[in-house]
C-alpha cells in the first residue's frame, strides 16, 4: 500500500520532465526512425508512397557530400578529441599543483565554456585572418609568410587546421573543470605515500594520478567523442552557412554529418529530402552508438572505478 503510494508520488514528480521529454525528445526520435523508411515523403503534404527499407539511406550515401562529411567528421573527431583530452589533462594537473591564484587561473580557463560558440568562432576567424590575423602576425615575427587559413580560396587543409585548433581549444574548458574536480577529490595521502617512497614525478602522474582519474577521463572521452561526432556549430561559427572558405568548391567543404542533416532539412520541401535528413541522422546515431559501446568495452579493462 505504502509502496504503491510512493510509486504514485514518484510518477507525479517525474511527470513534468516526462511530458517535456516525450514531446521534444521521444516523439521526434521515433518519428525520425519512421520518416527514414518512408518512400517519397512530401513534407508539405505529409504524404508518402508507402515504405522503403534502404531507399533513403541509399540516397544519403550516394550523395557526393556524404563522403566529404564522413571524412570531415572523422578527422575532427579522431584528431581533436585525443589532443584536447591530453592537453586538458596536462593543464589541469598543472593547475592543481599551482598554489597561488588557483581560483583566478581556474576562472580564466573556464571562461571559454560560458562564451557563445558562434562568437568564439568569429573571433577565431579573425585570429586566422590572412592579412591582419593574430596568428599570421606572430608567424611573421619568425619570418614566415602569411598563410591563407580561412580566407578567399583557402585550401581545405589550412581551413581544417584552423577548425581543429578552434575545436580543441573550445573543448578544453569543460574538460579542465571536470579533471580539476576529479584531481581535487584524490586523497592527498596517496601523494604523501608516493613521496615517502621516492616516486619520480613522471611515475606519480602515470601510475597514480591518471589511474585514479581514469573514471573522469573515460567520461570525458566518451562525451567528447559524442560531441565531436555532432560537430556543426564550430564550423558555422567559423565559415558561416556555406561551411567552407569563400570562393572554394563544394569538394573543399568542411561539412559534417550534422551539416548534411541540416542541409537536407533546408530543402525539406523537396520530395524525399525530409526522409534523407532522418536517414542521415540515424546513420550518425548508429555510428555514435557503436563507438560508445566499443569504448565501454575498453573501459572495463582500463578504468579503475
Amino acid at each position, binding site marked *: 500500500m505504502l509502496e504503491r503510494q510512493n510509486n504514485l508520488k514518484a510518477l507525479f514528480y517525474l511527470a513534468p520532465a516526462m511530458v517535456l521529454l516525450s514531446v521534444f525528445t521521444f516523439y521526434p526520435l521515433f518519428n525520425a526512425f519512421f520518416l527514414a523508411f518512408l518512400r517519397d515523403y512530401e513534407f508539405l503534404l505529409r504524404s508518402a508512397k508507402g515504405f522503403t527499407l534502404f531507399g533513403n539511406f541509399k540516397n544519403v550515401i550516394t550523395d557526393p557530400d556524404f563522403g566529404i562529411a564522413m571524412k570531415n567528421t572523422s578527422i575532427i573527431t579522431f584528431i581533436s578529441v585525443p589532443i584536447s583530452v591530453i592537453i586538458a589533462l596536462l593543464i589541469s594537473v598543472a593547475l592543481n599543483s599551482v598554489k597561488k591564484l588557483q581560483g583566478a587561473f581556474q576562472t580564466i580557463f573556464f571562461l571559454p565554456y560560458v562564451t557563445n560558440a558562434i562568437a568564439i568562432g568569429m573571433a577565431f576567424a579573425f585570429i586566422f585572418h590572412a592579412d591582419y590575423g593574430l596568428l599570421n602576425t606572430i608567424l611573421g615575427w619568425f619570418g614566415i609568410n602569411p598563410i591563407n587559413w580561412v580566407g578567399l580560396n583557402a585550401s581545405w587543409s589550412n581551413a581544417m587546421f584552423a577548425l581543429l585548433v578552434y575545436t580543441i581549444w573550445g573543448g578544453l574548458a569543460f574538460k579542465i573543470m571536470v579533471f580539476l574536480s576529479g584531481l581535487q577529490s584524490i586523497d592527498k595521502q596517496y601523494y604523501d605515500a608516493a*613521496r*615517502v617512497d*621516492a616516486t619520480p614525478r613522471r*611515475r606519480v602522474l602515470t601510475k597514480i594520478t591518471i589511474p585514479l582519474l581514469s573514471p573522469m577521463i573515460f567520461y570525458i572521452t566518451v562525451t567528447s567523442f559524442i560531441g565531436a561526432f555532432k560537430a556543426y556549430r564550430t564550423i558555422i561559427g567559423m565559415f558561416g552557412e556555406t561551411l567552407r572558405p569563400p570562393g572554394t568548391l563544394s569538394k573543399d567543404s568542411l561539412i559534417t554529418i550534422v551539416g548534411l542533416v541540416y542541409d537536407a532539412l533546408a530543402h525539406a520541401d523537396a520530395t524525399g529530402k525530409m526522409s534523407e535528413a532522418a536517414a542521415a541522422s540515424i546513420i550518425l546515431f548508429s555510428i555514435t552508438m557503436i563507438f560508445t559501446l566499443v569504448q565501454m568495452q575498453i573501459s572495463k579493462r582500463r578504468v*579503475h572505478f
Partner: protein
Amino acid sequence: MDITLKEITKIFQAKDKSETVAVNDFNITIPSGKLIGLLGPSGCGKSTTLYMIAGLLTPNHGRIYFGDEDVTDMAPEDRGIGLVFQNYALYPHMTVRQNIMFPLENIKVPKEEALKRAQDMADLVGIGELMNRKPKQLSGGQQQRVAIARALVKKPRVLLLDEPLSNLDARLRLATREEIKRIQRETGITTIFVTHDQEEAMSISDEIILMDLGIKQQVGEPQDVYDEPKNLFVAKFLGTPPINLMPGEIKNKQVLIRGSKVTGKAAKNQEVVVGIRPEGFEIDPNGIMELEVYMVETIGRDTTLIIKNFNDSAKSYRIIVDARHRIKPGDKVKFNIESDKIFVFNRETGERL
C-alpha cells in the same frame, strides 16, 4: 639507529593568521630497535611529530637526527623511512603485489629481485597468498598488513605508523597489535607508532611517550609510567577504568580526604587532588575509608564497585575488588588503600607532589 628530536617546535598558521602551536619544544631520544608508542589525546601533536620525523612536515624550530645525521632539511624520500598511514593509502588500482613492489620500482630494483623481496615481505606479514588481490577485496586487517609490507619492503631505517589500529574492529585490533609487535621483533627495526588508545600503546610498546597540548609529558616503560605518573594528566590518561580523583588536602604532613587520613605526604599544607587507582583499594573491616556502593558490575574475573562521586553525582568512582567478595548495591564497605596506588597532585598545576 637512535632518533633524536631537539627542541622541535611546529606552529600551524590558519588562513586568518591565527597560530596553533602543535608541538612545543619537544626533546626526546628514541632508542634503536625499539617499539615506541607515541601516545596522547587527539590534537596533542603526536601525528604532527610523526610526520616531522617522516619529513612530510617541517619543524619551525629544532633539529631531527637519525643517529648522528641531521635529517631536518632532508626530503622524506632520502630519509629511509617507511610510513604506514592511518587509512593505509594503498593504491586502489594496483594489486597487492604491485602495491608492495611500487617503492622498489621507484628506486629501480631489478624486477626479479623486486618480486622476490615483495613476496618475502608479504610472507613475513602473512599475506603471501593474497598477492593478486586488489585492496578493495581485502579486510581491514589485511590492508593494514599490505601497508606495513609496502613500508618495510625497501628496508627503511625507521618504521612509522600513524594510528595503525584505529580503522580495525575490536577483535582484529587485538590480533593486529600482536602482529605489529611480532613483525617489529623479527625485523628489529626502530618503530614509532602513534595512538590515542592508552591500552594499545601500553600493551605493545617497549617505551611510551606521552604528549598533551604539544608538550612531552612523560617518557618511559609502560609499567613505570603507570606506576609513577609525573602529573595529573599522565595519571588520568593511563589505566582503564581510569584513576579515581578525589579532592583532598594536606595538613601536618597528612593527606586527608573528607577529613580522614589516607596517607602521609611531606609537603606544606595545601589543597590537593588525590588519585587512587581502581585496583588500589583493599576491603578491610578496619579500613580507613568507608564508602557506600552504588552499583556492582560483575565480569567474573573480578568485580567493579561503582561509588558516587563526592562532588558530582553525574560522575562516579570505580573500585576493582576480588570476585570473592559478594557485595550488593547499598552496602557500606570499608577499604584500606595500597600506598603505591595513591598519588597526590597539586590542585593548581597538576604536578605530582
